[in-house]
């Protein structure tokens, strides 16, 4: 029985990995990263994390989590996520004479995908953008870009995010700091 279960998990995992939209980030996501890196100028870039967690892996994750103690807590959040893309890039030898800036063409590019800027913050040595995509009154996607001299982080989350945020705020509170920029 145990072997059968393990085989199912393994096959599902491998299947999920080879489904389109899983593991490897989309070319569009990579293009966004490249546009930002072009703006920074010559620098050594180390990819720390670059992953896409598509519907296949999420379903797989839900399946695995359902055997754990945290199943109730985790499953209600996983149910509302459809796709996640994350990129974390370590930057070295960045030209200090250039300002840290997320180029405006990123906003234009994401606007073509239906994203609207919600928060754009630029400080000395760092910049953060939060873009949202709404469909009717639902928050469909969230795109976060965080750029510092030493690191670039890109996150795109798609799903029923209104429900997800609602649950998160209801259960963990709406404290200043966590949602300060909203």
């Amino acid at each position, binding site marked *: 029985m145990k072997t059968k279960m393990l085989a199912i998990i393994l096959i599902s995992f491998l299947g999920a990995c080879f489904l389109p939209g899983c593991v490897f980030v989309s070319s569009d996501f990579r293009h966004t990263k490249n546009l930002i890196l072009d703006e920074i100028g010559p620098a050594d870039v180390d990819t720390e994390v670059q992953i896409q967690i598509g519907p296949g892996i999420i379903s797989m994750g839900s399946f695995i989590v359902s055997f754990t103690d945290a199943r109730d807590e985790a499953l209600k959040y996983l149910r509302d996520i459809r796709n996640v893309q994350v990129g974390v890039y370590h930057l070295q030898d960045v030209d200090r004479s250039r300002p840290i800036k997320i180029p405006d063409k990123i906003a234009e590019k994401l606007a073509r995908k*239906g994203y609207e800027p919600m*928060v*754009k913050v630029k400080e000395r040595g760092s910049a953060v953008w939060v873009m949202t995509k*709404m469909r009717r009154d639902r928050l469909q996607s969230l795109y976060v870009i965080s750029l510092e001299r030493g690191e670039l982080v890109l996150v795109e989350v798609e799903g029923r995010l*209104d429900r997800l*945020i609602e649950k998160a705020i209801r259960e963990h509170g709406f404290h200043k700091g966590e949602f300060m920029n*909203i």
Partner: protein
Amino acid sequence: MKRFNFLIIMLLIFITTSTCLIADDDKDLKKHPGYVNFDEIDIPKDAEETVEVYVRGPLLRLIAKATEHEDPGVSEILEKLLLIRVNTFSIDAGQADNLKPKISKIEKDLEKQKWEKVVRVKEREELVNIYMKLDDKDRIVGLVVMAIEDGDEAVFVNIVGETDWEAIGKIGRKLDIDEFRYFSEDDSPRKRRK
């Protein structure tokens, strides 16, 4: 092949209509009496620090819905709002001088459109103007804050939608907008009238 063409056409119709809906929302918002156009206020390209917040009705309603148990007061306020727009950026003395005539022009336009000036602070290095737009029933339907501090920063805020004095104070505290300190319960016109 026919089916493929049909799918492509349906997809194009969907993309076009959804883009039009977003554009229509923006058009409606710009026609709202509480909306103020800050397009003339360009954020200097070399500004070291900038914050731009643009949260529209649907997202505000989502936050309202999510916070209705945690903070029912704030939730009720947010539900009625259509837009919160905040632009702050660092400026030097020269940029402050360039901004002043632009602020004067916006002020003139606001006065023409019968906005009420509720706060005006003019000190050597600080200028704060707060205007409110009231509807026929004396409800606040728009609010504008324009503030500059020479050699420090400029702040432009526009809140669109039905709100009241105390609510603005609460939003200011929630969003850390220092200029909204004038909207305390004690300074409420209703309280002052008593």
